[in-house]
């Protein structure tokens, strides 16, 4: 890969930065658009940026995308996993908060695994669900719909459903995306993914205490549960939350992340 390239709106994507794999059509990520430039010999096409960001390419999937500022507000996109909080319920729907200061998202009363009129979960205000964005609608005022089942299988894949116990921490949306990438590929690669070792480090250190469960929502929320840790559960939860938030806020490097985990766990007298 060549040197990191930051583009500003109206900058062209240099040809030599594009992936050369020609078997698949080139796919553009957000922040890029194709423009035609009428010239004497037909039309040329150029790729230009519409946002400022770091140009990244994926040769395998033949994609180009622009990584913009990571601390953006979350805008629901279909198939994103989010952590939503129930605001109130109506006959057919739970009205959930996905991001503050925006219209509520709708979660069908029956869109849970194996839910029927009789067996549907009775969620109360303030309870949490791990849900997938089913549709975002079109145009202004459109409602965002969530679901807790995979409509194809009817199963709650990937841990969808109500989140009981545990605690939620706010992180930036960029951090949430990193955490999701890191957790999805950590099986084959235990090294730093996106420079993120804080989770695997915590996992190693906290194994003796019973480990922990974590769910990451794209909307910048992380749910942590350590019910196994018995009497130190609260402490462990808070320690994990602190580690994640500080890594996020201070843009820590991998070795700093390791140091941070050690320091916080020692401070809270969890690991000697």
């Amino acid at each position: 890969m060549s040197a990191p390239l930051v583009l500003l709106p109206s900058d062209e994507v240099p040809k030599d930065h594009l992936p050369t794999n020609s078997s698949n059509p080139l796919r553009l990520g957000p922040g890029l658009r194709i423009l035609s430039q009428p010239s004497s010999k037909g039309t040329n096409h150029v790729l230009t940026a519409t946002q400022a960001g770091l140009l990244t390419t994926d040769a395998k999937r033949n994609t180009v995308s622009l990584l913009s500022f990571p601390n953006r507000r979350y805008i629901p996109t279909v198939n994103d996993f989010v952590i939503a909080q129930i605001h109130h319920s109506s006959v057919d729907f739970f009205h959930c908060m996905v991001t503050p200061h925006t219209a509520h998202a709708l979660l069908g009363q029956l869109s849970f695994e194996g839910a029927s009129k009789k067996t549907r979960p009775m969620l109360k205000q303030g309870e949490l669900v791990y849900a997938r964005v089913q549709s975002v609608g079109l145009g202004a005022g459109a409602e965002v719909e969530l679901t807790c089942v995979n409509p194809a299988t009817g199963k709650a894949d990937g841990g969808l459903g109500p989140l009981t116990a545990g605690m939620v921490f706010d992180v930036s949306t960029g951090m949430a995306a990193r955490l999701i990438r890191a957790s999805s590929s950590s099986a084959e690669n235990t090294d730093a993914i996106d420079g993120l070792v804080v989770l695997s480090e915590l996992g190693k250190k906290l194994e003796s205490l019973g480990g922990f469960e974590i769910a990451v929502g794209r909307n910048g929320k992380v749910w942590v549960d350590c019910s196994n840790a018995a009497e130190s559960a609260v402490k462990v939860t808070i320690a994990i939350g602190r580690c994640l938030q500080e890594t996020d806020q201070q843009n820590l490097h991998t070795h700093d992340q390791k140091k941070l985990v050690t320091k916080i766990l020692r401070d809270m007298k969890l690991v000697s």
Partner: protein
Amino acid sequence: MVGPIASLSQLNRADGSASYKCPATGYSILGAVNAPIELPARRDALKPEEATVEVFVKPGTTTAGVGERYAEGILRSALGKIVLGREKGFPRRGLVITLTIVGGENVERGDSYLTILPALLHAALLAMVSASVPLSMTFSATLLGVTKSGDIVRDPSPTAAKAAVSLHAFAFSSKNHLLLNESVGRFEFDTWELVRERALSICQGATTSTDGDVTMGEGTASASLNGFIRETVEDQIYSDYAYKLDSI
């Protein structure tokens, strides 16, 4: 002379924000952008095909008056032109830019607002970039004054601006278009053209490279205002993606 100081994404709750300070004129602006957002009260007044750009200018010490309305009008038309309001998620929604004047001399009633326009424009641009608003281009702006002796002064201080024969605010796009011009005072067209050339060289650097903006020479890029905007954005992205760049 001391260059401007700017930083991005300082506010947590806004979608994008930027602060901009120009030491020469003393103005310091804090800008916040929220986009795309619903403007619920005026849903039927919103344009069906593109985003509605709203600009609010808040003076530091008083309430906004007619001068601010005027500046808002200019900013709205200048910024509305470079925002790609038809990109996904934007039509029928609003783009709200709030610019607070946190430092510098107050613009008195009836005073020309153009002394502060460049600072307002820069703060608005950086805040929009930080909010990832799709833009067709970036720009940079500068203020020039012509003194009694005919000298062209860059970024005159408020007192120098009062004494100037004519004052000119210019904004040039990253592709050298004249985006905005506000000139007051008594001047002739030839003077204006000289001022325009000077403004262009301040914004774009002495040489205008033809082969894309990316490979611009370090020396000229950092000296020009466009280069300054670019560096500010790059610095922020490098620090946000430090983890990624290290692994490369």
